[in-house]
């Protein structure tokens, strides 16, 4: 084969901390050929982003390249100076970042931002830049590019912003595109559209792509070769199909296994050697529902403008209906999934059920009692408060940065049970910590001293310490690595079986929902589009939207042909 476009050999990146220097990335070797797509897969902290930042030489101040060579087109990049890198970045190597909204300048129109890159790298002059920018917007399939040219990032959706970022990255026809988690935070259907666009554009231009992702499914579908990293080292590199069908390294096997796609039960996600006993069977759900939601509506009215108020004009703009007349129920001990894409109203619904948000109209009955009768602000004193608890989406965001894990778990005991005896509180906190598998010596730590999985456990412990009857799980694993997600999902399944709680599982991930829920409710634009038993909804979806959601889940290429989604026998 002809020489590689990018060749990284023995790369070592160090970063300095309070306790001396630590290697962030060590002994990394990789080759990327022309027109090839290489996936770097790993969990957080595996050094996959640092590797790509080292190639771009945009490491932050604490990090530095301590050894190894980076050859790009025969050029040494590891000791290249800033002016050379400035010239290369954007022209020869470009990058797509994780959060498209943060990657765009919020106060400049997107057209100007594309022009900047074109003019900076002498691809266009002031006179031709505008036309070229519009042509680029057209190429990334933004409708009505002339109009959108003047749009600001906040006026566009996340997927649109990512298209603009792609347009900027591809503006100068670079030879290498580095995509750092380009679709994290986007909906599955948007993710598919963005990834397919990226593949098509890079292929037609003969570009090489370095796709950095935590999602093996995504890498499996869009990459030619995959490189797996763990703790700053490359553990395995192989052709995609070979890697997915016959992984040689135990870490790759664990990662593959933890990916929920294709697993039959939650237990399948865990490595075989430390798999706990089978789940005890669930008791049959009793007839009377625990939670009944009927005709629930939440509207947000746009406040009248100042001028309208002054002139006492009564302009009637229809209020935005975030949740539009939905009804459903959750039985005792049942696990129900509320599935939909961002903005479909699923989080608003769960916040209303939790009495964090006042509904505009409708009734929420919990154990037959109408809980909307008590205003949200006074609900903290209601006896039902302890029975309705929630696990939040981001385990980091949902912990007060100033309180230790023990205090966070003890908070409901102090407030809702009025416990004041420190020994008693300590005992209850330790009991629940052992239930969620949180080591006791971590209890004194502050949130930033805990890992993502540990924080998730603290969040779950806090929610179940009161023994709630209904637990709302708002994307509890969305911010977690797959291996941690596997543990947390198993923990949730165990807890439900042991404590007989009902779950309302809010998620966008149908693969995760499948393993944990009895029933699925699919929401779109504030309405329920489909509802039914999990197996039925996934096997023969009735609504077109459900089918669209299912089709958007990334499937590794070789498995598409197999037709079924059965787990590979070789694993």
């Amino acid at each position, binding site marked *: 084969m002809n020489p590689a476009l990018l060749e990284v050999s023995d790369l070592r990146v160090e970063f300095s901390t309070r306790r001396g220097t630590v290697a962030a990335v060590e002994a990394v070797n990789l080759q990327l050929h022309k027109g090839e797509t290489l996936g770097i897969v790993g969990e957080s902290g595996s050094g996959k982003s640092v590797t790509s930042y080292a190639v771009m030489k945009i490491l932050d101040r604490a990090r530095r390249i301590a050894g190894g060579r980076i050859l790009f087109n025969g050029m040494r990049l590891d000791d290249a100076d800033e002016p050379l890198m400035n010239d290369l970045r954007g022209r020869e190597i470009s990058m797509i970042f994780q959060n498209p909204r943060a990657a765009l300048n919020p106060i400049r129109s997107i057209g100007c931002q594309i022009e900047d890159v074109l003019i900076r790298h002498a691809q266009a002059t002031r006179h031709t830049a505008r036309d070229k920018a519009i042509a680029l917007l057209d190429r990334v399939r933004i409708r009505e590019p002339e109009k959108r040219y003047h749009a600001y990032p906040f006026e566009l959706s996340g997927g649109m912003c990512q298209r603009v970022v792609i347009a900027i990255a591809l503006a100068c026809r670079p030879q290498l595109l580095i995509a750092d988690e380009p679709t994290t935070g986007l909906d599955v259907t948007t993710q598919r559209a963005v990834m397919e666009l990226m593949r098509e554009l890079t292929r037609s231009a003969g570009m090489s792509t370095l796709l950095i992702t935590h999602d093996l499914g995504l890498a499996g579908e869009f990459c030619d070769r995959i490189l797996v990293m763990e703790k700053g080292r490359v553990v395995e590199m192989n052709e995609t199909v070979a890697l997915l069908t016959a992984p040689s390294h135990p870490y790759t096997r664990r990662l593959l296994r933890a990916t929920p796609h294709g697993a039959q039960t939650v237990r399948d996600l865990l490595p075989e050697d430390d798999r706990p006993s089978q789940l005890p069977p669930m008791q049959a759900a009793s007839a009377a529902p625990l939670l009944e939601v009927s005709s629930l509506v939440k509207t947000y009215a746009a406040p009248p403008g100042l001028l309208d108020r002054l002139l006492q004009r009564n302009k009637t703009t229809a209020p935005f209906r975030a949740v539009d007349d939905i009804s459903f129920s959750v039985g005792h001990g049942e696990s129900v999934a509320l599935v939909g894409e961002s903005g479909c109203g699923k989080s608003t619904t769960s916040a209303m059920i939790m009495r964090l948000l006042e509904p505009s109209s409708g009734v929420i009955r919990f154990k037959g009692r109408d809980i909307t009768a008590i205003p949200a602000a006074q609900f*903290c*004193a209601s006896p039902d408060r302890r029975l309705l608890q929630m696990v939040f989406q981001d385990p980091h965001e949902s912990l*007060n940065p100033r309180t230790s894990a023990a205090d966070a778990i003890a908070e409901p005991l102090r407030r809702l049970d009025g416990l004041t005896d420190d020994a008693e509180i300590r005992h209850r906190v330790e009991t629940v910590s052992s239930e969620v598998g949180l080591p006791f010596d971590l209890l004194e730590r502050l949130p*930033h001293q805990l890992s993502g999985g540990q924080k998730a456990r603290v969040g779950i412990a806090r929610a179940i310490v009161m023994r709630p009857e209904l637990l709302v799980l708002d994307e509890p694993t969305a911010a977690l690595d797959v291996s941690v997600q596997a543990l947390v999902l198993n923990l949730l399944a165990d807890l439900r079986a042991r404590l007989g709680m009902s779950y309302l599982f809010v998620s966008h991930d149908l693969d995760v929902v499948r393993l944990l829920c009895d029933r699925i409710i699919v929401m779109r634009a504030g309405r329920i589009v489909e509802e039914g038993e999990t197996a039925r909804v996934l096997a023969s979806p009735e609504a077109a939207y459900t089918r669209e959601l299912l089709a958007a889940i990334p499937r590794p290429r070789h498995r598409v042909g197999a037709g079924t989604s059965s787990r590979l026998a070789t694993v």
Partner: protein
Amino acid sequence: MSALAGVSVGQQRQAPAWRRQWQHFRYVTTANPVTLLAFIGLGVMIAVAILGPYLIPYDPLASLAEKALKPPSLEHWFGTDQLGRDVFSRVVVATRLDLLISVSAVALSFVVGAAIGAAAGYWGGWFDQLSGRLLDTIMAFPLFVLAMGIVAAAGNTIQNIVIATAIINLPFYARVARAEVAIRRNAAYVQAARLSGSSDLRLLICTIFPNTLPPMMVQLSLNMGWAILNAAGLSFIGLGVRAPTAEWGIMVAEGANFIISGEWWLALFPGAALMLAVFTFNLLGDGLRDLVDPARRT
């Protein structure tokens, strides 16, 4: 089993809280030499304020006509003033008064301003509108002129200087507190605390407000400097502390008359003390923020 585990936890538990605080303080001060300098400056100022009257070689109020306007010497380090008082003794003694005025003024505006701002940021609505416009009104005045007006109208006492200084600094705390609380009002951890049964007031005081401390601390230390300058400024123009009390502002004011005739030391040394104090407080900001920021603790 859990009892056993409890015992082992008790033994393994990290160093006691004060010890961790001290380690954290040591880290914050050693990581940044400027912070260390600021904390040393603060320590010296506090020590001088407390021990000042016992350290000075001369009575700050005793005048000796035959020693008037002597330049700095070994006997009188900072020279003597027009009444023959020892400038060094007066500068040292004045530390307590100046620090007292500025600390109490800043404490007052911190407490009241943070309360107003936090309530406005949390509940919004009419209280936010009302307090916001009221604070705008205060800020619309040239602040020093406003302080002059308040002291002139209310009377020339130390208490009124403190109140005037507190009023003109109030809007800064209220604004910072309002913005910081409004950002965190709907944070996930606040919602979680609500689920744990916290009422609105409890959420605001126990969960949200402590998290706004880091930016408030920066504001606090900057304001300490302004407050000292403000108090000295009021004395300088004849409002506030009156002669013969030793106070940096009056000393600079009195000394200014003698600069033309070459007696520079009268105004220079109290001016330098003032400058050092303001300098120290301004440098302290970053250090204080790091000290109250839990993320800096590892």
